[in-house]
């Protein structure tokens, strides 16, 4: 991590969870030239990253303080929690926001009902079910409109 050492607040993003979403996001950010560090419990998960991925990978449990320290979390400017477990994402997001004072924290949440835990803390949430429902709703509205137009 020597490239990051000179700046007090390094300009880099930590992604926790190298699933489809995590890996995709890491590849995109890396292509855009951002510094990315991706964390996952299992080494195998990193195979989802593209061969041109230029960021760092750390193998370890994202809820373990030692692992987060190793990932230099206090100097990251964004943390994105996208593991496959809502509660793990909640814990990581809160650790990042409240314990390490990371500026930007985004988290994926499958169950929108748990959002009240986040709202007060300034953690942004992405809820796939709600997003999908909105998109489907839009698609349903479209043909109706064209009919009206006709």
């Amino acid at each position, binding site marked *: 991590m020597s490239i990051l050492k000179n700046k007090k607040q390094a300009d880099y993003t930590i992604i926790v969870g190298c699933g489809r979403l995590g890996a995709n996001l890491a590849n995109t950010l890396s292509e855009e030239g951002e510094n990315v560090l991706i964390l996952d419990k299992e080494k195998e998960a990193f195979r989802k990253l593209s061969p041109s991925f230029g960021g760092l990978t750390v193998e370890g449990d994202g809820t373990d*303080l030692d692992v987060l320290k190793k990932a230099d979390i206090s100097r990251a400017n964004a943390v994105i929690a996208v593991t496959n477990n809502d*509660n793990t994402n909640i*814990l990581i997001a809160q650790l990042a926001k409240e314990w390490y004072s990371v500026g930007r924290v985004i988290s994926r949440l499958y169950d929108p009902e*748990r959002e009240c835990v986040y709202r007060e803390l300034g953690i942004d949430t992405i809820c796939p079910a709600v997003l999908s429902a909105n998109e489907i709703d839009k698609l349903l509205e479209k043909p109706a409109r064209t009919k009206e137009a006709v």
Partner: protein
Amino acid sequence: MKGNVLLVGGRSKAKSLAQSLLKKGYRVTVINKDLLDCEKLAENEKLTVIHGDGTKPYVLEDAGAGNMEIVIALTPRDEDNLVICELCKKKFRVPKTLSLLSDPQKTDFFYKMGVDSVVCAISAVTSIIEQQAFMEEMAKAIPIGEGRVQLLEVPITETDPAAQKQVWEIALPKEVIIGCILRRDQTLIPRGDTRILAGDILVLIAGNEQEEIAILELKGGEAKWRK
């Protein structure tokens, strides 16, 4: 009739805790994810058992989380326990939440997130083992309130300066009181004129790290006793 208590997760822990709370007159509800565990727990007729994931708001609602006085999160996963406590606190306004924690490093973080009481089984067990293994029978100490207060068990022998003295004669630091005297099978609550005898075990409550001074006063000599 005492208040309502909700236990979430935990197999044998939930069972024995539920039994002891029922005996004390609380109304106890248990949530468990595992159907077999639920059936085991339901053998106790007085217990309300709900099968479901206690980290989901609607399951907590079914269990009547809004009417609970105390919610205790006993699952083996720290993140689940945190979410249970936060949901109960923020969504259901439960006055007191308690969480079991396996990673001792996160104790302060859990308190910061609003959990009222955090019990870290691993650090409690290791400290008891450490005490049993390395500390001689000089004194046993139990930390309370994140270690700000110590509860001490101090046995008094014939040669100790405190033996044969009345409580008022002993110059204990202000932050230390003798809460109780264990004399054979009796339990005495001491007053100023209570005389301490050899063979007594004193139970001290000590704040502000004054316990060492108190023990020196009671048992004399150089600091034989170390934390």
